[in-house]
């Protein structure tokens, strides 16, 4: 037990140090990639709440990232500062997510998946067709990076710290919420809604909350996505993006705090290391996901946990003898 904690602590510390020293040894493109990882991980964290903890299958997270990104881009174009725009993105997504939660009160599982899928398609069509607002297929470019207290986050390195900082913030908040009774309420929602309801858990409120918070987090991720990529177009937020976020959450480990970070790393950072796979990366990735699902549907974190549990059991068995 103690050794597992030690391993985990060391791992966390090393990760933090490596990330902090990033700009020292990473090239700009790698800084960009790690920033993109952080942003994607935030989006996946939101989905992890809805899906992993509350058990509501959502294929709409990509759409929320899109809504958040466009909100920030458009508000900044209209002259608002980054931070108010960022906040507005989260609030808007919270509200829309709350509304999207209503169907979840009536239907579950694959039905719900399709309601959210329909929503994603609608958002995509709106972004594409309402050119007066979103500039349609031509997209929005030239989005400024934020300035805080006179400090500009314009360069790759500074914006890298900015993204990582915000990610850490969300990770902390998520951790806090999950270990609070709210987290337990979300989980009982997933486990047995009928029993939960009879124990006074207001399943309607928690379902809507799970959707709204998850979506808001997605919106915040979008709020970072816009200044990071500095170019928005509807295609980035089509169904494929939502699906890949879904894959990330599951691959990392749904219902584990760090699952989304791992999942996003696999989808975003790993291809960079596996350059030799070039055109076949997606093929290999898909195959790997299938193997993982067959072998350990709890994802990579679940896998490592199982490995640790086995080791512990072996140690304990050894101790007995």
């Amino acid at each position: 037990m103690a050794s597992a904690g030690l391993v985990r602590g060391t791992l966390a510390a090393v990760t933090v140090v490596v990330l902090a020293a990033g700009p020292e040894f990473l090239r700009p493109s790698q800084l960009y990639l790690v920033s993109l990882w952080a942003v994607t991980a935030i989006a996946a964290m939101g989905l992890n709440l809805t899906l992993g903890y509350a058990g509501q299958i959502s294929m709409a997270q990509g759409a929320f990232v899109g809504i958040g990104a466009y909100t920030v881009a458009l508000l900044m174009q209209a002259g608002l500062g980054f931070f108010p725009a960022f906040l507005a993105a989260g609030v808007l997504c919270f509200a829309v997510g709350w509304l999207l939660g209503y169907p979840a009160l009536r239907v579950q599982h694959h039905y719900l998946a399709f309601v959210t899928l329909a929503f994603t398609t609608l958002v995509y069509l709106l972004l594409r067709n309402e050119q007066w607002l979103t500039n349609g297929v031509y997209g929005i470019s030239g989005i400024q990076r934020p300035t805080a207290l006179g400090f500009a986050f314009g360069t790759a390195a500074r914006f890298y710290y900015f993204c990582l900082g915000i990610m850490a913030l969300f990770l902390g908040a998520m951790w806090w919420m999950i270990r609070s009774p709210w987290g337990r309420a979300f989980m009982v929602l997933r486990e047995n809604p009928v029993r939960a309801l009879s124990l006074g858990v207001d399943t309607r409120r928690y379902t809507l909350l799970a959707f709204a918070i998850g979506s808001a987090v997605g919106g915040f991720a979008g709020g970072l996505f816009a200044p990071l990529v500095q170019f928005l177009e509807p295609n980035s937020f089509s169904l494929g993006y939502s699906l890949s976020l879904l894959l990330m959450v599951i691959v990392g480990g749904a219902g584990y705090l760090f699952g989304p970070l791992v999942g996003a790393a696999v989808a975003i950072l790993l291809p960079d290391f596996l350059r030799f796979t070039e055109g076949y990366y997606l093929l290999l990735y898909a195959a790997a996901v299938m193997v993982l699902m067959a072998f350990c549907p709890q994802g990579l974190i679940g896998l490592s946990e199982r490995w640790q549990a086995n080791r512990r059991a072996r140690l304990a068995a050894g101790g007995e003898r």
Partner: protein
Amino acid sequence: MSAFIQLVVSGLATGAIYALVAVGFALLWQTSQTINFAQGEFVMVPAFFVLVAIKYWGFGYWPAIAVGFAISALLLGAAFKGLVVEPMLRHGVLPLVISTVALAILMKEAVKDFYSSQAQQFPAIVEGTDLDFLGAVVSTQSIAVIVVAIGAVALLNWFLSSTLTGRAMQATAQNRNVARILGIDVERMILYTFLINGLLTALASFLISPIYLAKFTNGETLGLAAFVAAIVGGFNQVRGAVLGGLILGILDNLAAAYVSAQYRAAVPLVVLVAVILWRPQGILGRVEERSV
């Protein structure tokens, strides 16, 4: 008026294809509680088996079709069941859903990387003659599709509800442990399901590829449409899937013509959501009642 008839008739032809694919969905659901997100790709791929047989192995049309069915049964039926579904069923629905999402990517990428990223011509079973129907044009291909789809569905419906094997397949889906305890050959039941699905999708593939051309991305729209059809009609009723498919095909055409072409993709989805909220079990579906 003739425009309207044309839209409906064309919609029916498209709808019949959706129906054929949707039936596979409903079948998988009813008999193994599996949701196959790669169903569209299951329709996309068999056409390439045939193309390979024709182009690289020098087969004639009918032998190639036979080979196509055989490979489909083997890969999309047996191998899918053995390698994807079987190891995952015990983990519940979600991992399986994810796995089929990954499978869809895998199939698309494989066709693209190992065959071609470009659309391919595909030979037709019946030479497409166009017939005039109340001022609208219908091709014999479309009629063949409709007839085959309805025939396949009638057969399946009978099989599932009127034979012991059909019911044993449903029982297997609803409670595998009990099925095993009662001595139902669970493995074989699941295998049947997937073989039937593999053959159905192959059939759909051979019927539509001459019209739609064979391309690795074809599954995306088709799978989605079929899924929507299955839900609209009723997920747990094979005949519901047919109704859903036809409705969807017609609706799509009418929406594009009379509502908005830019939002045509939205119309079926809005209908879908309306159906889900108003009648979650689908138009012909059964309510899945549970007592507490």
